[in-house]
């Protein structure tokens, strides 16, 4: 049995605009900072720029698309784990033009 009750309508822009504005400016400042430092050739920065382009899409699946753009697209297990952590972006899956 589904207990779902749709939430009451609230102004989501009121709730989220200032937080999103702040995060966007932080992102812009980060790109400025790494560029000034000559570090914008890092593949992770390229991955960020590739993901930013996805924000202009019209379908409400931007978060999913951004996550997929950072993801390892391969399907087979790797031979051995040589590290325990994760980096946040997958180098080999970057489109050539974004690097």
């Amino acid at each position: 049995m589904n207990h779902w009750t749709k939430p009451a309508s609230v102004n989501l822009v009121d709730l989220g605009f200032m937080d999103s504005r702040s995060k966007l400016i932080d992102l812009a400042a980060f790109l400025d900072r790494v560029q000034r430092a000559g570090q914008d050739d890092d593949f992770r920065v390229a991955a960020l720029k590739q993901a930013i382009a996805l924000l202009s899409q019209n379908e409400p699946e931007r978060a999913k698309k951004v996550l997929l753009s950072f993801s390892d697209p391969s399907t087979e297990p790797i031979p051995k784990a040589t590290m325990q952590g994760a980096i946040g972006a997958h180098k080999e899956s970057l489109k050539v033009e974004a690097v």
Partner: protein
Amino acid sequence: MPYIEPHGHMVSRTMYDYEKMALAGCEIICEPAFWAGFDRSSADGFFDYFRQITEYEPKRAARFGIKHFSWLCINPKEAEDTMLADDVMALIPEFLNKPNVLGIGEIGLNKNSRNELLILEKHIQLAADYDQLVLVHTPHLEDKRKGTQLILDALKNHPKIKPERVIIDHVEEHTIQMVLDQGFWAGITLYPESKCTPHRAIDMLESCQAERIWMNSACDWGVSDPLAVPKTMLEMKRRGWTKESIQHVAFDNPVKFMQQSGKFTP
């Protein structure tokens, strides 16, 4: 409002954290076995750890009126060493009869390696042999989508595993639908930077109508917040959720899943 923390690594937290959680309405904490921030050198270390989360943490929780349950396994970060993993898994059956042990977890994958997958499959067999619930950890960041698919395939390949008795944790927007579509439960982890924020969690809950989903803080040794669940409940209220709908996600859903163990009582 009362809530359940269905995935909290309390060995990493202080008594002050227990107190804050109790004050915020936490009535039950469930603690999966995990990586403690460094690799253990022998199965003896895991034996002590299993005793800690099945015997000692329940006593700490009880001081604040909180019930404590646990899950047992060797986590995927330490599963690359298959000999160690086999030794640890051999310890698990003697703990499964304890009244506060709910099942096998958090098993899964970390870097999606062959050895990790081998140990995952052995854990799945262990769960099938002892008719246990399963709690699954999915990999981090760029490894999550691939790892989630490998995990779902391994689970679906076992004839005795019932999806409704398995929860796949740490889902995000790109993995939640594949988990729910195949009949599994999904866990959303509220964790700064590397997993999910309260607003993203609520977006997913609304998109999926909050069925077969729980939310948790993980609250481990990393930068994490043991009050992430009640803070998200507050955001749900601000976003127009009724008290009943909030309780459905924060209390009723975890109860519904974990009661399948036959040991869990709210």
